[in-house]
């Protein structure tokens, strides 16, 4: 039996005696019979109730620990006392209300402590009540209670998501699952693949092509993904020169002059540009420009060969009906990664501003490795309005700017035990810190706490579905099975 003990703001304490099968993450319905309204509360912590006399009982038991004996207990009181001693105190948070059978946000009322009826709210009922996964739904996993969790695709569309958790808890797995679900529904996606683990998503684990095989286009910058100077354009190149290669302003001005001169002559080729730089009279500027230019050339990302050069527009056309471009950033130097990402984001902004693209889903694994600081706010604000809907995936929550947490629409939180990490994640506006601190610590492998619009702001623990696709996210081991390559 559950009874309300205390209500303070959104915090509700419930006494559960005798204990029922209600655990952290579960939902409880508090039905106020007098008003025909109900509160939906979620258990975020549980422990023993502070039953009077427990300390005395424990001390008494320790005093008589070595005393053996017989109890002639004709009424079998002991079993009743044990029920009292095991009484649980559930710490809950109010997540919503029901008024006249419909979901309501009005939680500014208090149900009767003496006449309210409390019962566990099965996940299936909550999902139905909250309207989760009813339109354009994609399967994502199973709730703790065994209910199938499908999310509305619109709850990701136009949203910013964070997938975080400690290593090997299933973050990349969820990211791939979301990617596959988006692609299957016609979504256009770009993945910054730091570890080269998305490149085989078009194949099953048995190395057979999947139905979505042709919708995944892996590109390795400098190998099968090269662009011409003309396509990159002066704006993108200057941004790379200045922000990634730290070109001083005076030299940047000189670079712009050279670019315009070559453009007028119709000579925007790498060799001509090198000659033009060498012709700069100021030795300091010449040297500064030349070093940056050689750095760019060394990546092999830029080419004069028309046959080898491609454009992002062309690549995106291939996935216009739905698909993902996987930008393989594996085995690249930090600078090269940053050059590629700077190029991609600048070009994407241009394409979106020109309405070449309606919108795009961007999956950024360990973005701190390639995203300069000034881009965080840009992604959260300007680029989001342009139609870049980013999903950040990281095991280092402090690598993501605080503003990103505050504005995240959805957070997929896997197991964390580190206090510092939990403190950072708890800054997300979509959840209270207690929920994060208590539940995230005890999440099993492949289970995540979903917070945000995907579940209509009803946090839920979800076991993520497995995938047939080759996810390649497993850690390489020294003492591995010989079959593991």
């Amino acid at each position, binding site marked *: 039996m559950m009874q309300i003990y205390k209500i303070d703001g959104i915090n509700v304490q419930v006494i559960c005696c005798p204990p029922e099968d209600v655990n952290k993450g579960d939902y409880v319905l508090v039905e106020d019979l007098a008003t025909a309204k109900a509160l939906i509360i979620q258990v975020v912590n549980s422990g023993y109730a502070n039953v*009077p006399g427990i300390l005395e009982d424990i001390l*008494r038991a320790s005093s008589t620990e*070595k005393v*053996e*004996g017989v109890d*002639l207990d004709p*009424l079998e*009181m*002991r079993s009743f006392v044990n029920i009292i001693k095991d009484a649980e105190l559930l710490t809950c948070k109010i997540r919503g209300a029901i008024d006249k059978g419909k979901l309501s946000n009005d939680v500014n009322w208090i149900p009767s402590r*003496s006449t309210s009826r409390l019962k566990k709210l099965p996940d299936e009922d909550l999902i139905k009540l909250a309207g989760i996964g009813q339109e354009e739904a994609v399967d994502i996993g199973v709730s703790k209670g065994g209910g199938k969790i499908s999310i509305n695709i619109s709850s990701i569309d136009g949203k910013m998501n964070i997938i975080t958790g400690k290593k090997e808890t299933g973050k990349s797995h969820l990211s791939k699952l979301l990617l596959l679900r988006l692609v299957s529904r016609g979504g256009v996606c770009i993945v910054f693949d730091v570890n080269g683990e998305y490149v085989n998503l078009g194949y099953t684990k048995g190395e057979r092509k999947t139905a979505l095989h042709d919708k995944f286009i892996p590109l390795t910058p400098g190998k099968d993904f090269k662009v011409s100077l003309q396509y990159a354009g002066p704006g993108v190149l200057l941004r790379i020169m200045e922000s990634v290669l730290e070109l001083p302003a005076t030299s940047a001005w000189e670079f712009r002059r050279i670019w315009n001169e070559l453009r007028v002559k119709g000579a925007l080729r790498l060799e001509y540009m090198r000659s033009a730089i060498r012709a700069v009279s100021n030795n300091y500027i010449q040297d500064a420009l030349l070093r940056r230019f050689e750095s760019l050339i060394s990546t092999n990302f830029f080419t004069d060969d028309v046959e080898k050069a491609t454009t992002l527009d062309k690549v995106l056309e291939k996935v216009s009906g739905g698909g993902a471009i996987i930008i393989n950033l594996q085995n690249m130097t930090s600078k090269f990664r940053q050059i590629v990402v700077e190029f991609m984001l600048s070009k994407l902004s241009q394409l979106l501003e020109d309405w070449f693209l309606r919108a795009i889903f961007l999956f950024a694994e360990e973005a701190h490795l390639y995203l300069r600081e000034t881009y965080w706010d840009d992604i959260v604000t300007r680029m989001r309005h342009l139609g870049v809907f980013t999903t950040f995936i990281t095991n280092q929550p402090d690598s993501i700017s605080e503003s990103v947490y505050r504005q995240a629409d959805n957070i997929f939180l896997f197991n964390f035990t580190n206090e510092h990490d939990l403190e950072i994640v708890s800054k997300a506006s979509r959840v209270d810190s207690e929920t994060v601190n208590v539940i995230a610590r005890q999440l099993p492998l492949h289970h995540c706490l979903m917070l945000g619009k995907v579940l209509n702001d009803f946090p839920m623990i979800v076991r993520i579905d497995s995938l047939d696709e080759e996810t390649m996210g497993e850690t390489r081991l020294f003492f591995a099975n010989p079959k593991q390559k």
Partner: protein
Amino acid sequence: MEILDLSQKAPVDFIRLGSVSLKDVADLSLRPRNIGLHEAGFEELGYADEQNFVAEVGKQRLDPIRLTPINETTQVLALDTSSIELGETDAGLLCAVRGTIVWKDRNGYRYTRYGPFIFHVTEANKEYLYNGLRQIYFGTNDAAPVPSVLWMPGRLRNILERWLQGQLSQNCENSILLWDGSLTAWTIDSPVALISEMLRTARGNGNVVLAISKKTKFVVSGQRVADLIDDRDAPCLLDLDEIIRREYGSYLCFFGRVYAAKFTPSCFSFRLDIDKSVPGEAGIDAVQKLIGNDLVVESYPETLRLAHILSKFSASEVIGMQRLVTENYDIRVVSRPDVRQVLFGPYGGGRSSSLGGEGLL
């Protein structure tokens, strides 16, 4: 003595009459006794015979009787009981009593605990319960004046305690039997004939009954007795029998010789009554066997301490019993306002006031 011997002797009439009284309570509402979260203990109605003694000795010198522990193996058995009020009903009150016998054998301390026995005491049934149990366990056909319902938990406890004392007297041989309280008979709880018979039976089986009182305070010539005994003399006894008998003998019936006992150097001393029909030296020997066979901490025997601990009800047990009664006997739990709390708030005090104000049931 085997555990089985004692555990087979249940006070069946406590079970029977308790059950009868509880069945009467059906369809009544129970206002449970509030148990505060910080409540340290419960009041219990103690024995009226454990009164304080104030005596004047004049120039008489009180010499301590020094004791030497006798390690000759002797079984020591102790018993204690307790009662508690569980709540009020429309018709009366619910209470519980429990008793424990503790003894020490080669393997350590052992116990047999009897109860709890729960009673619903009302104006209508109190006479039936009280005199019924007295007749069964005291073996008397005289109807005694029935106390107020409020005093009934203590009286029921007393009957259980006398029954347990009788069981030990009858079933033990050559043992030291420790009673909690005194060997004074003066109230309705301590009929002279009953106490006399129990002591006679105990002696007949080679037992010596010692009664130790925690509550009795001795003041002799204006001084606490503990101050009269030097720590260096412990273990020792101070014979106060003549002095106390001179002051109180005209209206109290003493079945024991009265001593102040200090078994270990400490600030505590207790009243010790030794069955007065046991020859003086044999009585002192029994005390020396007690301290030679039982662990003594702060001048108090461990068997008696354990009997007390095991008998006493804790707050969680009270809540458990309240739950037992409501589940098994269809009693409705109601939270009626407590007039004392309404009028006086935290200063209400009294039997049913809640100390913590956070009652749980």
